[in-house]
């Protein structure tokens, strides 16, 4: 297999990795994160806007984190605090971000298709990969440690499995879930920043379903950081091999379908047993 393709796969997988890690965190706390797509897009737009305004891509990343956290906060407000259905709130947020980014794009730059170009990170980066890619690769073990070796991670996992039991032991499930969702937003925001900085502009709807692929990665990876990372790398590999596969006669559309079909198969239990966190999707109880 070409080294080219492997390198390309890692680069393509980077936004997926960030979003999927965010997804793992929020889902392990019990909140379904349909809004990863919106958080990616918001991060991409914020990165574009901030980098364009300041000329410094790191400000773009910071802006992306902020935007991701803001969207995460909105998500948490709707689904955790107001106990709205997590899926509906997620769908609403995705729609909201699409509309808001296009609206702001039109207002700030006069176009509703793309923003003006800006200088991202210098090309080449550090040892084959731009810095954000390294960020993604380092984030995987970081999240793993966070979840399995820290107190916060323990509280998070406990909330995800049985919020009532966790509460009886002094954990505040509300706060844990809100924190988890906001953290997920921050991570997904970075993923979006990478997207925008790589192409040096923001194009409308540029996340193009990656948030859902990342969510698929979470499921295929059985809600574990390393598993999700593996799945995302595989999806990145599929995307990187598109051209090669096309040469072999496989149409692009079929290659693009691979992540989705794989997810459905995995969930149906053909790839080992797929057990989500027990309180996933269940709003916190109303008896307080």
């Amino acid at each position: 297999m070409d080294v080219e393709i492997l390198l390309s796969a890692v680069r393509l997988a980077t936004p997926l990795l960030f979003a999927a890690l965010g997804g793992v965190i929020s889902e392990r706390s019990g909140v379904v994160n349909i809004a990863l797509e919106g958080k990616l897009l918001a991060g991409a737009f914020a990165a574009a806007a901030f980098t364009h305004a300041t000329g410094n891509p790191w400000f773009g990343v910071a802006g992306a984190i902020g935007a991701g956290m803001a969207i995460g906060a909105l998500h948490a407000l709707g689904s955790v605090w107001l106990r709205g259905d997590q899926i509906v709130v997620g769908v609403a947020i995705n729609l909201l971000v699409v509309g808001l980014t296009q609206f702001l794009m039109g207002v700030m730059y006069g176009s509703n298709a793309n923003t003006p170009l800006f200088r991202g990170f210098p090309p080449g980066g550090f040892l084959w990969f731009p810095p954000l890619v390294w960020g993604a690769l380092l984030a995987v073990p970081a999240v793993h440690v966070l979840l399995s070796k820290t107190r916060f991670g323990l509280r998070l996992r406990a909330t995800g499995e049985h919020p009532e039991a966790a509460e009886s032991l002094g954990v505040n499930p509300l706060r844990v879930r809100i924190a988890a969702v906001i953290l997920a937003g921050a991570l997904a925001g970075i993923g979006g920043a990478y997207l925008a900085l790589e192409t040096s502009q923001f194009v409308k709807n540029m996340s193009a379903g990656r948030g859902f692929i990342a969510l698929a990665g979470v499921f295929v990876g059985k809600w574990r950081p390393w598993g999700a990372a593996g799945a995302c790398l595989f999806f990145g590999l599929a995307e990187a091999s598109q051209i090669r596969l096309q040469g072999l006669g496989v149409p692009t559309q079929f290659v693009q379908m691979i992540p989705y079909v794989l997810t459905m198969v995995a969930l149906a239990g053909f790839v080992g047993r797929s057990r989500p966190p027990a309180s996933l999707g269940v709003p916190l109880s109303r008896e307080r």
Partner: protein
Amino acid sequence: MNAPRPVSPRPTRIGARLLAAAGARLGPSLAAVAGAAVFGALLVLLIGENPFTAAAVAVRGVLGTPDGVGAVLFDATALIFTGLSVAFAFRAGLFNIGAEGQLLVGALSATVVALALPGLSRFVLVPLCVIAAAAGGAAWATIPGILRAKFGVHEVINTIMMNFIASGLTGYLTVHVLKDPGQMIPHTPTIPEAARIARLGDLPVPGNPIPTSSPANAALLLALAVAALAAWILARTPFGFRVRAVGQGETAARTAGVPTGRVLVGAMALAGAFAGLAGVNEVMGFRYRYLDNFTSGIGFLGIAVALLGRARPAGVVAAALLFGVLNAGAVEIDLFTEVPREVILVMQAGILLFVVAADEIARRIRRRGWRAGGGGA
């Protein structure tokens, strides 16, 4: 179990009952729309425009011109179908996020049937194509339905996956198999005359205000009929009763002997059929061909419509009309003011968020009312 309803109630009793029921259910929806309207107005103010003039422009263009009314009806038709799809699934406790994919498959199915059987008379071909659209959508929705019933996999993620798979599959078929040769944009050849349905503007109704150029077509009548059918199924058939039972509590229903697996699959199939029928509006009534990935989000807006309409067919129709007005209004605002049309999309998402919030706020108000009255939650 409810006592059987009187067989032939007097009209006044139906009217009073409907009004009471509507009032109780409308509260959160109306509040949501009002909240989103305020939010939209704030956005408009933010960019230095006057929200009232923008609204006036939109309303005048949408409701005051025949073209506008036609656009509203066309969009509303599609939204009625997708809204019914999501709403019916909701009643069974299912989340059908897959209306986008189901409608693509349904539309393509109708197109394929029309292209394959050009010689038939319209009295045979039109119903066949309609059935094909429903069947295509139903088949597409049945897969996640079966995965839910047999493997317990949540239909949300599966229907989302199916959306993307549908997009890829229909895209492949349109570009590589069915494509009108020599065209840049991927679409199929036009369907035969016999498979087309009448535009509303062509109907020989005296004083018909809708111009023949408007895309609004007879699929609207089909949509209204299907809405009535859905209401009837839910309220008056054993299947509908089982759907509602499963929706209220799957475990309880199973304990009571309801074959929950079959009900879930059936509900998804029917939901898929409703979504697929939206293809009739687009392919048979307007474009007369299948255009790759023509949907522009009406599957997702269907979710908002279903929730705003409280998952009841009558509510769905009303909500679909409202969203049709909003969609058409977006075009007007875009053309005639400095306000970008995306403010409407933001409003629509806002409506969805506010509906969710309004529900919860209403619940909290009610709970406090109970506590004050001495009852416990």
